[in-house]
């Protein structure tokens, strides 16, 4: 049972990673529109190249 002393903090660490993932996704607006992206998936051709990659300011 002594292993739990090691595993429990590890599990909490992993959980906190996924929580940060969730916070990041929410901040990026990933949950704002749940209808359109599944349709974009159907369009199998090359998508429009984004001219600049440094557009990381908030969408809105």
């Amino acid at each position: 049972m002594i292993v739990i002393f090691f595993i429990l903090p590890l599990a909490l660490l992993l959980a906190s990673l996924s929580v940060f993932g969730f916070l990041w996704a929410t901040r990026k607006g990933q949950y704002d529109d749940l209808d359109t992206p599944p349709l974009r998936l159907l369009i199998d051709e090359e998508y429009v190249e984004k001219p600049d990659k440094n557009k990381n300011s908030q969408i809105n």
Partner: protein
Amino acid sequence: MTKAVSTNPCAHCGLPAPRRADDAPAFCCVGCQAVYHAIHEGGLQNFYEFRGLGARGEAPRGVERAAESFAYLDDPAFLESQSEAMPDGTRRVQLHLEGVHCAGCVWLTEKMPTVLDGVRDARLSLARARLEVSWDPERVTLSQAARWLARFGYMPHPLSAERLNGAGQAERALLKRVGVSWAISGNIMIMAVAGYGGLNMLSDPGLAGLMRGASLLLATISMAYGGGVFFRRAWASLRAPRVSGDEASARVSRWTHLSMDVPIALGLGVGWLHSAYATLTGVGDVWFDSLAVLIAALLTARWLQMRGQRFAAEATERLLSLLPSTARRINPDGRIEEILAATLKPGDRVEVRAGDVVPADGIVESGASTLHRAIVTGESRPEPIGPGERIEAGVTNLGAILAVRVEAAGDDTHVGRLMRWVEDGERRRAPVVQLADTLGGIFVLVVLAAAAITGGVWALIAPQAAIAHVVALLVISCPCALGMATPLALTVAVGRAARQGIFIKHDDVLQSLSRATHILFDKTGTLTEGRMTVAECIGDSNAAFDAAALELHSTHPIGRALVAWAHKNAPVWPPEQPAESVEEHLGAGITGQIPNPDAHREVAVGRLDWLAGRGEGEQALAYWRQVEAQFARAGGSPVFVAINGRIACALSMGDRIRPDTLALLQQLRQNGLHIGVLSGDHPELVAQCAASLDVDTALTRGGVSPEDKRDFIMTLRAHRPDAVIIMVGDGVNDAIAMQQADVGIAVFDGAQAALVAADIFVTREGLAPIGLLFDGTNHVMRTIHRNLAGSAVYNALGISAAALGFVTPLVAAVAMPFSSLFVIASSLMQRSFEPTEPGERN
């Protein structure tokens, strides 16, 4: 009417289209042909691969206004206020697109950057019909992008983004709290299972201590991050109990005004303190799992509610964006420029085309036309207007082009002043004390009393167990189910109502709706259709069809009504011989001839006096005079048709009562409501309408101004303090009355002020949705009562058990989710706003 011609599917939309001899693509209409060619010229044929995938909402309408220039989108003032400058020099704007529908639309609109040089990015949110465009103002103008979209039939409308973005940010912040709270409660629950499984401080102090310590850490984060919301609001409610109207606060004592957040915060605080103490000292039970789940569940309910309200706010914004906000200014050099109506200045000259809404108050300089003023004044009949006469913003020009000199624009117009009053005015209405809030206040008192008694009694019997039992009581009596009962039921109902085209902006009005005692309707456009139709035809109906053939050349509302009527009733339509040498006589009538070798007909349509003055129909003039008087008494406008100099037929034109009005009033009467009509239309017409609908004359007023309507409601309330008044309308003239009433409802096609003032608005034509609204409200209230009763029973049992000392952590862990699940299931299974006609929806 439809002829049996062999058909092909239209190459663009797939509707039946006439077959063509060659193999060229067939089209059902010019609009489809234009869009098809626009797509092919742009090399965008792949659109047809994706069209129809994931279709939702209404199918797009035809391309009607593709010729617009959208010059106002390049106005610097517009760009400054409605678009956002990005650090790299591009700008970003949100547009509402009409007619986006499926994956094909997503593909086509997002192709814009590859086609239009200078457009950086285009992203469509299909469900919200919102396109986000970023572009480089140096290389392309927004109006070019808008024209590109309009060519495919996606009419773009700018959205004022500020209000919505605020809501979006708050929603995201709450979603973060919800997610974190659930993650924490999941982890705490896993650790708590070990405790329920037998791990305790006696059997294995090291491991149990670790579990408790970790739970304490997680629960503290959850309390601070997720639960902070409740502590702040509970504190605010303790410090300043909601100040409500004088009468209401006199009736209800200050204590029942404590918000639901107080018992929640109290339960959380006490539970956490006790568990933290138990963890640190190693003595006693911990309740961290219950606390964490409670926080997560309550935040979820709150988030759902916020989402529902955002949905309604977006729908309002969408409708507002469809209203025209541009004006066609005539520059001194005679050139016409399309600008934002808000940028007009007194002294400017504007052109108002037929069918346009007048953008500003002013004086007509040239041109003569007829106006439809119903949305501003309630007047149902079109009124003629000529040079030198006053014209108000918001009325619709029906006839011919007018040139107007602007006297007041924007906020200074009559409509603008009303709008400002509606937007700024605090809600001068009796406050609604939410049932759940009242119960919540009582609940706190009961729980505190029960806790005090339990503590006192147990202190006498077994002092060492007293604190544990009090804490058990406070936690198990947690208002989890009680707190979620109302918001969950309301949120589910509001979401379903929106799918039926009923948008509820503030869900607290549903409670007022269920207690409504009086309902007041506007007449023109609400009870009636708000446009001219043929009510009655006396005489030879073939003559009337000949008249309609002449009216095909006219834009006058009476002419259009006659054409619509002939389209429905004539055996042959369109007519075999088109009318010739048609001449309109302004304010009098129309003349022309139908060339037919067998029966050549000279036709004149117009007022009886005018026809008589031309020497027509002298024989039976006395008879037709009688008919004229009869029509006028019934509230119609009489129109006569003379064929070859003899009057052959008389038509009564009027604003017809909507087909579903009678059924709705019947239903409302059965619900025990008093019905009234308030209208700006002529008192006689209003009285006739009220009489034909069997409406109480004591609650009916005609010829009233917007302020009179508001005063009527205030007087009614003064006489009957317990009256709950609902105002249903569509126009600017109803807006302030809607705000004064307990609930304001705007019907289909309402004016801007009406949409802003209304608590509820309907996007489906007709009055049937209002009946549905009342039915749905009754179901929601029943669901809320069921939820509250269920959670009250749970709490009664829980508190009794805790007071007797039967509650262990295990019991609490089983009981709490059960009560919440009951509330969730009951809310989801409610029968409100179920579609009545399944075939109607797609």
